[in-house]
């Protein structure tokens, strides 16, 4: 198998291309994104370079503890990122253990059977397979969990009166939150399902493209891609459902009262319990 190697200096051509075009658009349209663009372009390249060399080292020393460490870092970063993206909830520090659990559970259900029965790397911890495939799955879980949490906590805030009215009629938290949960899960799953519908028609997925470019026969590459696509659905469903379950536990007290989670307590008539982690730092936003 052979492929065209990209010499490092040629990356500068793409760097120039991205900077010139995006900065031009940003400046012309007055977007004010110049600083973010430059930072993003450089940071993205540096992160990838770092992870590239890390993978080189990992492949050279295929040892289970290193692979597990790498997976742990991935999970931790995904959980923290997911928790930080939620603006209406109880704050990143309260949310992070819950997002970690949701991402971990969904990823385990999506990954373990596939590595054990479908891809079957030998040894089981072979980094070349375990790290990139896990990365794609964990990333999808991160997005789904962030979206479910953001939507649920925002809805609980905005529709507080309606949820409390359900409670007052004798609804359990599960019943009182049924409609927001349904909407949040549906919204979080739709992008993954849309991905299934349009794959191959609009674009070739990244993993398949990479394999084809590096010389894998397309008929082999698609098998991997099908596995990944299905895993993405599994992780979205399991992580999303776990996130809704955990969000419900965060939103209600043991005596089934709706907590006030974000910001100042509302005026007395609509006040209620709250979860607080102290003053929120700007970096938690």
């Amino acid at each position: 198998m052979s492929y065209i190697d990209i010499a490092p200096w040629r990356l500068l051509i793409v760097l120039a291309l991205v900077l010139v075009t995006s900065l031009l658009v940003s400046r012309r349209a007055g977007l004010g994104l110049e600083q973010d663009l430059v930072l993003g372009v450089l940071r993205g390249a540096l992160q990838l370079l770092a992870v590239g060399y890390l993978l080189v080292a990992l492949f050279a020393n295929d040892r289970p503890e290193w692979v597990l460490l790498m997976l742990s870092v991935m999970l931790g970063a995904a959980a923290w990122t997911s928790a930080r993206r939620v603006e209406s909830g109880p704050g990143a520090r309260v949310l992070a253990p819950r997002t970690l659990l949701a991402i971990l559970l969904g990823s385990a259900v999506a990954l373990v059977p596939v590595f054990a029965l479908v891809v079957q790397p030998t040894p089981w911890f072979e980094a070349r397979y375990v790290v990139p495939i896990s990365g794609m799955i964990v990333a999808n879980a991160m997005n789904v969990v962030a979206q479910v949490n953001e939507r649920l906590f925002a809805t609980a805030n905005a529709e507080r009166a309606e949820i409390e009215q359900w409670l007052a009629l004798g609804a359990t938290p599960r019943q009182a939150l049924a409609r927001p949960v349904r909407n949040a899960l549906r919204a979080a799953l739709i992008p993954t399902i849309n991905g299934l519908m349009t794959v191959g028609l609009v674009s070739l997925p990244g993993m398949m493209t990479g394999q084809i470019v590096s010389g894998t026969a397309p008929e082999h590459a698609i098998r991997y891609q099908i596995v990944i696509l299905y895993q993405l659905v599994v992780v979205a469903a399991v992580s999303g459902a776990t996130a809704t379950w955990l969000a419900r536990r965060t939103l209600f007290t043991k005596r089934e009262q709706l907590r006030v989670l974000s910001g100042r307590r509302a005026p007395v008539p609509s006040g209620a319990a709250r979860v607080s982690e102290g003053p929120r730092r700007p970096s938690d936003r």
Partner: protein
Amino acid sequence: MSAVRLRARDLTVRFDERTVLDGVDFDLDAGALAVIEGPSGGGKSTFLRALATLEPLSRGEILLDGELERGLSPSSYRVRVAYVPQLPVMFPGTVADNLRAGPRLRGVELSDEAVGALLEKVALDRSFAPRTARDLSGGEKQRVAIGRALANEPRVLLFDEPTSALDPASSGEILELVRACVEGGAGVVVVTHARDQALALGGARYVCEGARLSRIEGS
């Protein structure tokens, strides 16, 4: 002497550092009416929400017909102690869907006849049943909210400022409904900031101020 239906002992609610309700004792007999007056921020709405168990207590206990609220599941307590908020929220769907909401949570489906009877109880025509609940006027919504609470056949009804958003004509009709609930044998607590309304309703009058509740002499 009639039995105490709802008893609150040492009810205390704190929001962070602020004490909103401080050691309140309160008894309500079956078929009795209590009207709570008081200034804004005095704690009267919080008191009502605490009785509805929508507000966590820092201290104190509530007994319903001698049974500790903590010993019941929150759902079964709330079915027996109905709470009608200041601004009624209509659930999506028809008026009939709203009236059926409470019993439906426990797997009971009210018949069309039962829905019609509830509408009559809250002085609405039976033709309201198929109408979209969110399209109703403020007064009509308030009636549906009361009917929705009555569908659970509660022993106690808690009304938070039931007429604050209504015109005088609708207000009078809602107050009639409140009186009918008392005559029907339920214990009823009404929170209001309007003195004339409190006087018009009758019953025992209380004032909630500075996180304390006290009975007005002679009421």
